[in-house]
């Protein structure tokens, strides 16, 4: 049971950039206090913004790991600020924007390229049957086949942890492949071929070098690398 009153000091080092003032990013250190009991990095960022410097900009909304707004690089690894516990990170916490997407301000990056890559894999159910007045049937085994990849919240933690993506932002990236996987392995969907064609191109799954960064980065625990491997196998075994 939490003891409410105890506070702890955090040295929060944030990589900052204001396009209206700065020519390049720079580090700023905030000395903030957060509750000792299971505070997260978002609490420290709020303490800095609300009580030290209101110009600090970062996205956030739900604050419990389901909306996907606040992916950032925390002590060198991608995580959600609302899910990364201070007690796991220690008294010094460094925070910077996710890599591979254009930096706009402080921890805010341009998400448009990421969502364009998502849209490119036809991320919606395609089925030309007339389903009638009842639900389509799907066995519990068929439903389980793609369960893991339905958890994606499009936070971009996986894609922006990928060293291939950093070097080649033309690569669709892990998140787009995860969302393709979600439909390729859904028994109700009829467009697996189309999606596998898209992912068989130069910018598709073959860019993946199996670094496993994406699986470690996923705040939802999705086995991202395994999903990418399953898509690769589907392309090879079913089509070649």
């Amino acid at each position, binding site marked *: 049971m939490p003891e409410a009153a105890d506070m702890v000091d955090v040295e929060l080092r944030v990589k900052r950039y204001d396009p209206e003032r700065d020519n390049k990013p720079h580090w700023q250190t905030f000395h903030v206090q957060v509750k000792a009991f*299971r505070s997260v990095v978002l609490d420290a960022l709020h303490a800095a913004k609300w*009580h030290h410097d209101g110009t600090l900009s970062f996205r956030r909304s739900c604050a419990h790991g389901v909306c996907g707004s606040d992916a950032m690089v925390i002590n060198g690894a991608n995580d959600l600020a609302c899910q990364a516990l201070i007690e796991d990170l220690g008294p010094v916490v460094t925070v910077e924007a996710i890599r591979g997407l254009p930096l*706009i301000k402080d921890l805010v990056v341009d998400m448009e390229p990421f969502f364009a890559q998502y849209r490119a894999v036809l991320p919606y159910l395609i089925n030309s049957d007339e389903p009638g007045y009842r*639900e*389509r049937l799907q*066995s*519990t085994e068929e439903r389980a086949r793609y369960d893991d990849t339905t958890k994606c919240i499009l936070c971009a933690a996986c894609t922006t942890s990928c060293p291939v993506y950093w070097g080649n932002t033309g690569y669709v990236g892990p998140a787009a492949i995860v969302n393709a996987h979600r439909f390729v392995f859904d028994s109700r969907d009829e467009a697996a071929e189309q999606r596998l064609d898209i992912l068989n191109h130069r910018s598709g799954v073959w860019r993946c070098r199996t670094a496993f960064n994406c699986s470690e980065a996923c705040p939802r625990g999705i086995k991202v690398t395994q999903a990418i491997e399953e898509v690769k196998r589907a392309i090879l075994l079913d089509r070649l």
Partner: protein
Amino acid sequence: MRRFEAVNVHHHSYDAVIVGAGGAGLRAAIETAGKCRTAVITKLYPTRSHTGAAQGGMCAALANVEEDSWEWHLFDTVKGGDYLVDQPAAEVMCREAIDAVIELEHFGLPFNRTPEGRIDQRRFGGHTRNHGEAPVMRACYSADRTGHMILQTLFQQCVARDVNFFNEFQVLDIAFVQDGTSRRVGGVVAYEQATGDLHVFRSKAVLFASGGFGKMFRVSSNAHTLTGDGPGLLYRRGIPMQDMEFFQFHPTGIYKLGILLSEAARGEGGILRNRDGERFMERYAPTVKDLAPRDMVARAIQTEILEGRGVGPDQDAVHLDLSHLPPEFIDAKLPDITDFVRTYLGLEPKVDPIPIQPTAHYAMGGIPTNVDGEVVVDAGGTVMPGLYAAGECACVSVHGANRLGTNSLLDIVVFGKRGGRAMAGFVASSDLPDLAGGVEGDVRSRIERMKAGSGGESVADIRDTLQNEMMDKASVFRSADSLRSALADVQELRQRWDRVSIDDKGETFNYDLTEALELGYLLDLAEALVVSAAARTESRGAHMRVDHPGRDDANWMKHTLVTRAADATLALSYKPVLGDRYEPMERKY
């Protein structure tokens, strides 16, 4: 390095504008796609919307698992809402629920399945078989992330239809135009977060689907961004707010944090226990016990705490106990919420009891509408041409004084669709409004004033105080004294808000500015809530007056309308509750 001088203003012209891209906004957008040129404006990315945080399910009488009927669902909704529900509207919702769930499945929603491959269903609070006999399996679900699946599926369908989104554009004002002798909608003014530019969207019609305002309370399941911008800006322009005193506190929020732990935890067998380990709901609701409606469970928890049977260092919580459920069952049915407990409390819910307390969750009240999403501006049913609302920001009223669990996800898809369809019909037979230049002037001066403010007041301090006062004085239990005190506090905070200073004077992602503007809406809506609650001298649903503990049907079987005049004075009026299929009776479970 970029430099900005004056505020840039851009002009757009659309047939229809949808404000908000959660479940209701996206469902409306699917409906207008291909019928009229539509802009969907959202202050977040669509998939960040708080629909995605909904967990437990969406009720519809599919009868896939056991006998059920939409009429039983209707009865439960009316009774659960403590008879303040407009019964014809609830009938629409409960009848159309079945097709709505099937349609979501056809859109690709990954529902959990029965062994026969049909959509699986489970129990939920207040949902019963045959008018209260026993809990019924009515909630269609997808593990404990049903809202996430609905949000993703509707967004996917919008991608398939190439819906035109304006992401991270925050609507801050609405324009009405004179049309002969009456007024109609002319468009909205939006602030572009990335650039600080203003955008005027001229439009024949606008549908608000901007969500709730639960961030006026300290312990809240709501996202930081749920600040009531849509209802707030309409309220300032003279649109009444309906039934604002009815605000739902969900029984099981994570202690102190308020993060939601779904009612599905109890639907799947979880039990609430006090300090003595007693299953106290047996005393409050002998038939359905832990699956009583939320208002009753929240009051029971607060009563246990007030009478000294709470747990924790301050004895201000009770336990949610899942430890008797099979571990593999918890992993399969409740994976997300048990992860929240591990992350934010450091407890293992398969073994440890979970400290919980009621958390501000859902506004039953809001923008008054009819069953087609048309905004109704008086007690006589007068519609504002071109203005629509759906979802939590709206009040149809299908939830009355207390919403049943799962009926919000149902509300957003049923009335999002109906609102979108009605709006598409309206724009097909109307001309573009003649919108004069300069409608952005008010927003521009608000922003300039906020950036120039030197009064030294802090947004964070005012917001903290508001959240504390509302939690202590206007939440699960209220009295004339507590509400009088709350009103004085809110009015003082509004004066302090006029003297706010912000640090960020820039144009790029200036959340310092948008948080200050959002706080203004929260303060206005808090005042509307407190004034409505102070007037209602009875207890009904989520509105519990300790100084008026009984329901008073003779005097109070009516909806509240609160209207704010241009000089900021408030006026209350009332309108009748519709429908008499079910006569009010004592609410026992």
